[in-house]
């Protein structure tokens, strides 16, 4: 008997040799998502990612709130990278409303974004370490994260959900001794980072598990539209901070980290090396920043955007984040679409896990720098 199934539904055929495993959504090894994995013995035959367990409808919520009310909830998808996910929203709203940002605020925003990038990468590195059975690599980054969390707490007043970037600048000025304190923490942090190299990146166990596994070629990285560290680990020199510099990134001195191997090892190493560049950016920004001046352009109460649309993007810890904002002469946006790096990198998961050993799944999965909550929005 054949039945007509509605679109979006399908029947599965059963094979005696192939076993279907659900990795997640409760299993900590997958984050808040499910991977439907089919295995033949020890090898993965196919992988079907099933995200959506933490879908909160951020885009729908944004249509019901005005431009200022949207700030705190839009950072919720990645609370430990909150400055970077708010950054393109602020840039977009500024373009829609025609607001100029003071020079000092631009530098402060860059510093906040780079501190947040380090916080995110350290958090990711801690999880990556523990899932490869390296518990020191869980403890160290989780502890060193506190250095920058303290700095951002001094800047914004909140430890994790800062809501520090606002359309028109930043919420408040830096505390009085910030520059000196920041330089001291960054210097100590760089010293700590160098210790990661010997204990983690030169560790033969890590190399054995990650080198040569989950190889993504340059052509495929481009074809699949990947972004962020996944793209740069496959040899594509693309960083939004360099290619389409926003705020003051063009004045600052830093490099793009590119590796050619395209395997899990390269994907885990690119974010690590980027933290050194972030430290360089923070130092340079502190040096070039105007020492005084306004940090926020006041908006009109309940501002209305024109009949216009805007697409702005920035580079976050997980790749490019783009905001597409449509406005129709109302205080609320008509439509907000958030295109995030995690969602764009999701597509290479079935591609990379095919043919991999099941035990190596966490090494490939977490190497993708994937954050389920951000992908679902």
């Amino acid at each position, binding site marked *: 008997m054949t039945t007509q199934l509605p679109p979006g*539904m399908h029947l599965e055929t059963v094979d005696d040799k192939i076993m279907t495993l659900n990795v997640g959504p409760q299993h900590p090894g997958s984050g808040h998502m499910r991977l439907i994995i089919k295995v033949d013995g020890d090898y993965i035959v196919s992988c079907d990612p099933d995200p959506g367990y933490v879908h909160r409808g951020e885009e729908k919520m944004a249509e019901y709130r005005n431009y200022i009310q949207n700030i705190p909830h839009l950072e919720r998808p990645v609370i430990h990278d909150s400055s970077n996910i708010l950054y393109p929203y602020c840039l977009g709203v500024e373009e829609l409303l025609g607001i100029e940002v003071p020079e000092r605020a631009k530098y402060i925003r860059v510093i906040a974004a780079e501190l947040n990038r380090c916080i995110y990468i350290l958090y990711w590195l801690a999880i990556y370490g523990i899932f490869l059975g390296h518990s020191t690599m869980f403890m160290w980054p989780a502890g060193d994260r506190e250095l920058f969390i303290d700095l951002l707490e001094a800047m914004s007043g909140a430890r994790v959900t800062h809501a520090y970037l606002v359309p028109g600048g930043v919420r408040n000025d830096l505390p009085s001794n910030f520059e000196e304190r920041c330089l001291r923490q960054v210097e100590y942090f760089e010293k700590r980072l160098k210790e990661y190299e010997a204990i983690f990146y030169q560790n033969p166990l890590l190399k054995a598990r990650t080198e040569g596994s989950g190889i993504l070629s340059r052509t495929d990285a481009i074809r699949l539209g990947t972004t962020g560290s996944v*793209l740069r680990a496959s040899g*594509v020199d693309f960083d939004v901070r360099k290619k389409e510099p926003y705020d003051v990134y063009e004045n600052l001195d830093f490099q793009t980290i590119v590796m050619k191997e395209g395997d899990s090892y390269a994907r885990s190493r690119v974010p690590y090396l980027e933290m050194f560049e972030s430290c360089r950016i923070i130092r340079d920004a502190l040096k070039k920043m105007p020492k005084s001046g306004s940090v926020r352009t006041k908006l009109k109460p309940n501002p209305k955007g*024109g009949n216009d*649309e805007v697409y702005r993007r920035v580079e976050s810890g997980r790749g490019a984040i783009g905001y*597409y904002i449509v406005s129709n002469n109302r205080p609320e946006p008509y439509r907000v679409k958030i295109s995030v790096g995690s*969602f764009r990198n999701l597509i290479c998961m079935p591609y990379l896990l095919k043919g991999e050993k099941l035990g190596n799944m966490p090494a490939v999965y977490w190497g993708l720098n994937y954050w389920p909550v951000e992908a679902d929005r």
Partner: protein
Amino acid sequence: MSSGTEKDIEVKDTTEEHSDNSENTAKSDSMSKGEAKKFYEEKGLDLSPDVPVKPKPVPIFEKSLADKISSKFGDKIRVDYVRADRIRVTTKREDIVDVAKFIRDELKYDHAESVSGVDYPDSSEIEVIYHLGSYTDEKLGRQIFALATRVPREDIPNPGSDTTRTPSLRDVFYSVEFHERECFEMFGVYFEGHPDMRRLLLPEDWADIPPFRKDFKIKGR
């Protein structure tokens, strides 16, 4: 005993303060329009709601790209705007695959950054908009090419079986695969020729209308 009475007195004091505060805020909330205007003027805030419109020069490089595509397709496309780093083109859904192939092969855009749906219930249409970028061409690093099309919208949607459908661009830009799946479940736009048009984020047993349509309201708002 004495400590107990002290506590009682303290509690009373704080409650009185609270009631005072609430009265004050109530007064400031019930400010008349004239008072509010005066209040904002004293603070130096401008109340005029209009966005300043500054005419910007049309950039040369972006103009050359837009000219290329409009000379090839003529009436089939409409160039909506050409701004610094941003071009937007609207086409009919019958032509979208040809236009996308031209963008990929001649203009050298190689991946999709995002695929968004925008619901326009007033004109009974849903807009599907592809934001395309390039990794391979050095000159296009800053550029985003927005390719839009409009599909008819039905008041009582039946996703997958009604006229809300458009050809999929998955064979042209492989990277749109998951983005189109998201657009299908959130707006009910069926992409013809997509190999795997299943739901992605919504639960399997979702039985309501596509949630990002404007007639799907959030409760309590």
